[in-house]
């Protein structure tokens, strides 16, 4: 098992942690514990909370925040960043292709059914070029690490990735609580992300307006990521809309304001495709705006991300990512993909059933860590029950080997202890460039030995440092 701080040969710290390790040794343990409580108090006062679906008693909860930062060297980051940029460029090329020429199907690389009969594929998008040619303005790429130079992409989030506000607030909290750490370490900053997001969205919409009116669209206050929606709107200085604030007049999308109606050019929408427009998608949806999708297809408004982007982060497509990258980029992928068995394929299903106890099995359309099986951590009964589900509906599942995720130290009541982590860097795509904010959101499984880092499943977060040199 690879620990990112401790060098097993010397029992001292690996190079990126050298200064942190020294600092940790100088700290008074109970004082650190106190500061950890203070950090939590800070989060509660600012109201950085999330809602858990299906939990009634306490509507708003805090995501546990661990005060020991995770540290990546400049060199480690360069490797990851290049791989992420390559991957996200490929994702956009892929989306452009599947909604237009479908060359990748014609080339026999991906079976037609996997695209055209996929729930995440939106036929309404076919033959349409989104403004600026961009499909995924914001992407989150989940990366895990198994060794010094072994990085794997766990999944891509090309629809409405969340968590970026935690990346920024975690840093702000650390700056407030441990300013001295930022004088002794040289850390790349993350706080200008909202401004970059604004510029990136504006650049994408330059065919619509020189100085576009940008807004964030939220499902509302009960959504689990509502804090983030309001945070981003606030930091960008734009309106935070709900569907009911919008109406479509003569093909233009208008906002109802106190002084009448005014047009909006860019909607950074944090609602899923099927809720955008009841006329084009789910007629039951009360979240959306009738006619919005037609206005979009007429080129009068930019939606970020483009509807239908989900076909690129579908878990069944995931296993084809190395081939997708090679097809569009003409080069080998820089980041590893995790070997993936598609249970819809009988040979793969046989292997998965024979080795269930060693594998991680996920629903193709699942997210948030719900409905997945971690074989090595499951009881015989859980395995048996999951086996039934697999046999009943094999198309719905993919399986992967259980990786030995890297660990980093967290603060526990008994002192520092290693816990498994992943990393979600955030990527902005504009016609000019693909940029990755240095670091990202580190999610940490707080339970000893656990590999599930999702906040809905008891995971926490950490500040993530990328060193300048």
């Amino acid at each position, binding site marked *: 098992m690879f620990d990112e701080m401790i060098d097993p040969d010397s029992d001292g710290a690996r190079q990126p942690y050298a200064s942190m390790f020294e600092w940790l040794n100088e700290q008074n343990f109970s004082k650190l514990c106190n500061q950890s409580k203070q950090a939590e108090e800070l989060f509660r*006062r600012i109201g950085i909370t999330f809602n858990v679906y299906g939990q009634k008693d306490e509507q708003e909860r805090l995501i546990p925040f661990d005060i020991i930062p995770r540290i990546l060297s400049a060199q480690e980051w360069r490797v990851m960043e290049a791989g992420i940029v390559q991957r996200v460029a490929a994702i956009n090329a892929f989306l452009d292709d599947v909604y237009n020429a479908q060359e990748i199907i014609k080339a026999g690389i991906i079976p037609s059914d996997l695209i055209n009969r996929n729930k995440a594929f939106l036929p309404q998008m076919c033959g349409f070029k989104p403004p600026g040619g961009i499909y995924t303005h914001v992407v989150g790429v989940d990366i895990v690490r198994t060794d010094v130079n072994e990085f794997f992409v766990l999944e891509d989030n090309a629809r409405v990735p969340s968590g970026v506000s935690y990346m920024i607030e975690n840093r702000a909290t650390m700056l407030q609580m441990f300013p001295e750490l930022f004088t002794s370490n040289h850390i790349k900053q993350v706080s200008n992300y909202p401004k970059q997001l604004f510029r990136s969205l504006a650049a994408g919409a330059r065919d619509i307006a020189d100085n576009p009116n940008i807004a964030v669209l939220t499902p509302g206050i009960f959504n689990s990521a509502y804090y983030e929606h309001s945070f981003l709107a606030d930091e960008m200085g734009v*309106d935070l809309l709900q569907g009911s604030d919008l109406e479509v007049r003569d093909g233009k999308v208008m906002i109802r304001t*106190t002084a009448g109606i005014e047009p909006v050019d860019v909607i950074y929408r944090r609602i899923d495709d099927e809720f955008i427009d009841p006329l084009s998608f789910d007629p039951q949806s009360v979240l959306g705006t009738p006619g919005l999708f037609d206005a979009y297809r007429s080129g009068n408004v930019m939606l970020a991300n483009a509807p239908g982007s989900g076909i690129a982060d579908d878990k069944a497509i995931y296993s084809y990512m190395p081939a997708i990258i090679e097809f569009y980029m003409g080069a080998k992928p820089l980041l590893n993909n995790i070997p993936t068995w598609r249970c819809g394929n009988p040979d793969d299903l046989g292997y998965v059933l024979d080795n269930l106890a060693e594998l991680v099995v996920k629903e193709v359309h699942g997210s948030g860590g719900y409905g997945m099986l971690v074989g090595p951590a499951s009881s015989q009964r859980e395995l048996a029950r999951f086996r039934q589900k697999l046999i009943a509906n094999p198309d719905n599942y993919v399986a992967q080997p259980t990786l030995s995720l890297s660990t980093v130290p967290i603060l526990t009541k008994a002192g520092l202890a290693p816990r498994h982590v992943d990393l979600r860097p955030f990527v902005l795509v504009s016609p000019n460039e693909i940029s990755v904010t240095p670091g990202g959101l580190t999610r940490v499984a707080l339970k000893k030995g656990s590999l599930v880092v999702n906040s809905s499943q008891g995971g926490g977060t950490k500040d993530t440092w990328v060193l300048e040199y």
Partner: protein
Amino acid sequence: MLGRYADNLYWMARYLERSENMARRIDATLHHALTQTNDGAAEWSSVIVSNGNAALFNEKFSGHSMANVINFVLRDQANTNSVMSLLGKARQNARIVRTALTQEVWQSLNESWISYENALKRPINIRDLPAILESIVKGSSLFRGALYGTMLHNDIFNFVRLGTFIERADNTARIIDAKYHRLLPTASALVGGPDQSQWEVMLRSVAAWRSFNWLNKGRLDPVGVAIFLIFDKRMPRSLSFCYKEISSNLHDLEMAYGRQYDAGDTARALAQTIKDGEQNNIHMSNLHDFITSFISTNNQLSLTIAKDFNLN
């Protein structure tokens, strides 16, 4: 700004103002109950009646004991106008429009809510009551200070202020209405002498006990109290003061949006009615009609604002 935002800002301010008024009313009544020889049940009952909550209260409690009323008005979840419900709604509204508020304004509300949620979780011990009431009023003051000192004085600010003063005018008018019969000259005869403690409750409920005494050198007469609460432009909770503020905030909006609104006309007309009443030396026997018509026009204005500015 978004119409929905204006709506949430307006109601956030109304709920917050209402919670502060509740706390002041309880505080005044508590003071009365602790200093009078009777059991004060009538006074506690009038708190419930003037809030229009009698039906729900009677369903849950038998008898207007201090403990019943206090728990109902401060912390009952079923009572949509309990301080706890109001603060929850004010915070919910603020959370929806966070992007329109400064950090300081939002945090003042959020922190108040967190502390009351704790303080009001269990039935209230009378020993803790003064401190709880004081902190509710303080929370409101903190919010007001942060609002004044850190927000742009633009349309966002105007809608918050409109909410505050329409609610406040309604509250002051309702207190006068609930007790107007005590202000009639004949009432003194009925109860065998002027019931000063009643006027004291009234003045304390609108934070005006000391300022009234200061202006009148300790002379307490019913007509004087009525005139003070209705007409005195210097008193921040008088009807006159509220309408000066309402008119001025609507005027700002008309300037900002470059047109005149029905709401502005309604407010100006009501401000004029108040002025006329003062000049014509309104007779106490007309007081009830005056107040009833005021409350109804004030409510009407709230609806007109919603319509004029797309608040929905």
